């Protein structure tokens, strides 16, 4: 058990070093949301009036943050394919380290990267939108839950798919519908019943709602429902990732 923690920490260190050196990643992740909020948010701000009375720029900005966290986290699975392609994974698998530690280390590093990104962006966005730290706990919980669920999905996917191109395609096909029915762009309550039901089945919708509570103090679902959904899904998806990865490297 102590090995599990120490080994996960060692893997975490390596992943964190990689994230910290990926300059293109950080620039892209900072520019994209600012551009979306700048062009679309400001453009629609006076056109769109939300039932909750919340400023549309802020609504969109919080949604885009979650989109960024989700897509970045799925990309965490990407690193597994890269590790396989560079051969790094082979050497790792020969070391006496459990497959669980490898998965946990990757998830933890992504978690920290997501949180750093969100806090930096909130700091910038707060300058020209009404975003503020209404509930830091809700903010961390939502970013954490969505990151764990999406990294795990990415790892499970990467365990099955050997090629980078297939991974990109399948990841996009799997996640784009989640983004559309999650309340990122418009509140779920404004949707017709059929689409609303789809949104209720979407784990990301609970993450977006909880994040909005953290940054704007408003929410559509009960908070306890959001928290328990994210917690349950995090545990479940992490388990799926560990089993999937373990199976893919056992011969």
């Amino acid at each position: 058990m102590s090995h599990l923690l120490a080994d996960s920490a060692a893997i975490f260190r390596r992943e964190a070093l990689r994230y910290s050196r990926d300059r293109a990643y950080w620039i892209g992740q900072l520019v994209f949301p600012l551009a979306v909020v700048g062009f679309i948010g400001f453009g629609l701000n006076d056109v769109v009036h939300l039932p909750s009375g919340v400023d549309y720029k802020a609504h969109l900005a919080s949604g885009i943050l979650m989109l960024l966290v989700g897509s970045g986290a799925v990309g965490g699975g990407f690193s597994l394919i890269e590790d396989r392609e560079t051969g790094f994974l082979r050497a790792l698998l020969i070391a006496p380290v459990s497959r669980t530690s490898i998965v946990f280390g990757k998830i933890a590093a992504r978690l920290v990267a997501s949180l750093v990104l969100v806090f930096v962006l909130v700091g910038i966005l707060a300058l020209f939108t009404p975003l503020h730290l209404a509930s830091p706990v809700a903010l961390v919980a939502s970013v954490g839950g969505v990151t764990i669920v999406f990294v795990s999905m990415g790892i499970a996917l990467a365990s099955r798919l050997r090629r980078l191109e297939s991974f990109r395609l399948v990841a996009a096909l799997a996640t784009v519908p989640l983004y559309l029915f999650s309340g990122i762009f418009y509140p779920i309550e404004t949707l017709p019943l059929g689409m609303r039901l789809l949104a209720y089945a979407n784990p990301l919708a609970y993450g977006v709602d909880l994040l909005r509570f953290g940054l704007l103090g408003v929410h559509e679902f009960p908070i306890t429902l959001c928290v328990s959904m994210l917690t349950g899904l995090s545990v479940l998806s992490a388990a799926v990732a560990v089993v999937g990865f373990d199976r893919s490297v056992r011969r």
Partner: protein
Amino acid sequence: MGNDATTAATTTPASGSDTAAIECRGLVVRFGDVVALDGLDLTVPEGICFGLLGPNGAGKTTAVSVLTTLRRPDAGDARLLGRDVVRDRDAVRAAVGVVFQESTLDPELTPREHLDLYARLYHLSDRHRRVGEVLALVGLEADADRRTRGFSGGMKRRLEIGRGLLHRPRVLFLDEPTLGLDVVARAAIWRHLRDLRAAGDTTIFMTTHYMEEAERICDAVAIVDRGRVVAFGAPEDLERELGGDSVRIELERVSGAAAALERVDGAREVVREEGPQGEGSAVFRVTLSEGPKRLAALLDAVRGFGIVEVHLSGPTLDQVFLHHTGHRFEEAEAPDPLA
């Protein structure tokens, strides 16, 4: 796996002076229809530098994969320092270091970061000191904090060897350690391996398809062909077993030439080489005891056949391979089952 009699016979303590470093019996590995290992038997004593020699596709890499727990054999059993590689996987992993044929480095990390990561994963108590020692050992101190992205093939291979040695494994596996390296880098790797052998506390198990490499660094070699061991011994002994030097001679007229060569005093084995030669001429390989002394007599015997070219060399592992398999090294190259 393995019947009771052999299991009982090999129940030796996990550590002890008479435990072999490696012991395989009847290993079989199949990739679909391709049989990569076809009943491989091998015993490697502790503390030597051992070479598994064979053409590409002979099953060398597969053997390493099984012995390092990366692949389960379809039949047969393998023990490393007395531990079963399937049942006692974790103990085996802790005891071996592996240098793979392909790079396993992260281009974004520096040598120091690579070694530090593995020092943590192997739970070394003297992490910092050991990482420094290994960097010095493989001559990468000056480049210790540069990312490996821009490293040359030789530098990368040295780092891989350092990673393999980091946790002071009792058995170090190297799969084709000098494949794809230039002459200078190859010489540097050989020097490292010789130093390591001289230090004496690590058993080295390397695969190679370079005869020269095996002759230069290995105390003992096993020649594998089509997934089986066909010869085992010290390179010098295997060569001596041939009982002679090698004469390669090209003759213009073929008819009756082989018989004439066989009649020469001291000639043991006459083989006609296959492949395209000049118009009508043929190349023969003759094993000739005391070659330098008897070469003149041999030339006299075949003068009438029109000598085009003649070449005398000492016995080589290449000939050993030919002797034991009936075909030449290059001809044996099978397609890679993993490719």
